[in-house]
């Protein structure tokens, strides 16, 4: 059964991920969170408001978040995009143009709003939950599920993967964060 992941655990993991990305040059802000606010990850967003080590840029659309992320990458700044599955659907052309064709490493944390606790997302009653993984598969975007606290190691793993393959990689947040 999937479990909710506490916001502090996600934030600490993001900090460690950014520290690793920066290596010896680690400084504040450690990294950037590009957010189109996702209800599913709202406890993380609320906790980020109090964080000084991570800088949040709230974007009006996921298209913008992808392009901002490209500029940060060029300037050597690490970032994570926190979006919702609906935002993934809304921004696939920019994901393609920036992260795939542009070969810009882009790491996404995608909230699966309305994912049922007792069902595999691929069998969800809700199309926005059901189609997320097949869409990522169609675009060849490697992805993993965060089904509970034991899965947070996927965050640095898929962040590194996006850098290694110079393209997109994603984790799907299974249940609403706590």
């Amino acid at each position: 059964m999937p479990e909710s992941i506490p916001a502090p655990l996600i934030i600490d993991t993001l900090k460690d991920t950014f520290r690793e990305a920066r290596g010896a040059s680690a400084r504040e802000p450690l990294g950037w969170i590009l957010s189109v606010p996702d209800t599913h990850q709202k406890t993380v967003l609320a906790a980020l408001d109090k964080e000084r080590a991570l800088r949040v840029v709230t974007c009006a659309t996921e298209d913008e978040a992808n392009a901002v992320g490209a500029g940060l990458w060029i300037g050597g700044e690490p970032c994570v995009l926190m979006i919702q599955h609906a935002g993934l659907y809304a921004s696939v052309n920019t994901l393609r143009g920036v992260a795939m064709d542009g070969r810009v490493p882009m790491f996404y944390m995608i909230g699966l709003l309305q994912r049922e606790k007792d069902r595999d997302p691929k069998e969800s009653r809700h199309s926005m939950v059901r189609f997320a993984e097949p869409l990522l598969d169609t675009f060849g975007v490697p992805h993993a599920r965060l089904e509970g606290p034991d899965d947070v190691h996927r965050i640095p793993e898929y962040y590194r993967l996006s850098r290694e393959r110079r393209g997109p990689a994603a984790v799907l947040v299974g249940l609403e964060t706590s």
Partner: protein
Amino acid sequence: MAMKPEDVLRAIAAARGDAICVPTMTTSPAWRTIAPDDLSIGCVGFMGGASSLGLGLALAMPKRRVIVFDGDGSLLMQLGSLATIAGAAPRNLTHLIFKNGVYHTSGAQEIPGGLNVDFVQMAKGAGYRKAYAVTEFDDFKRRLPAILGDEGPVLVELHTGLADKTPMTDRSGVPFHQQVESLRQKVQTAG
């Protein structure tokens, strides 16, 4: 009489110093000729993204000026970026709108609202530090030091005619991924 975009670009090239420039759509072919192989990156393959790409560059490199050469049709595709930029408030971002009222590349169809769309009011409403229009080239040259030096975000609506070339009539551009890698290496080497 509307300004020639090529004249505007030449004036910027002479005054920009080490600023990073982000051309898109019809400014791209002319800029490649005027400022070849320099600190520039064209927004190619995700129309409307120039302003957000410029925002990311400006946030990553706060000591360097970033100048976006946006189009009116392009900006309309991601109009919310005005609010995103104003919210992030990069002091080093200059956002130029080459306003010609049409989608030049696809055959000069009028953009929604045509020349009546007022990007200056939109930028002010979004929260840009400064926003104004320039209609004459002499006035543009006179204001250029402030355009490139004032604390941002600054938006300047430039009333221009059509460029001589478009990305469809001049396809000599470098693929986006090569531009990304080239600019990344240059700015990181420069430190």
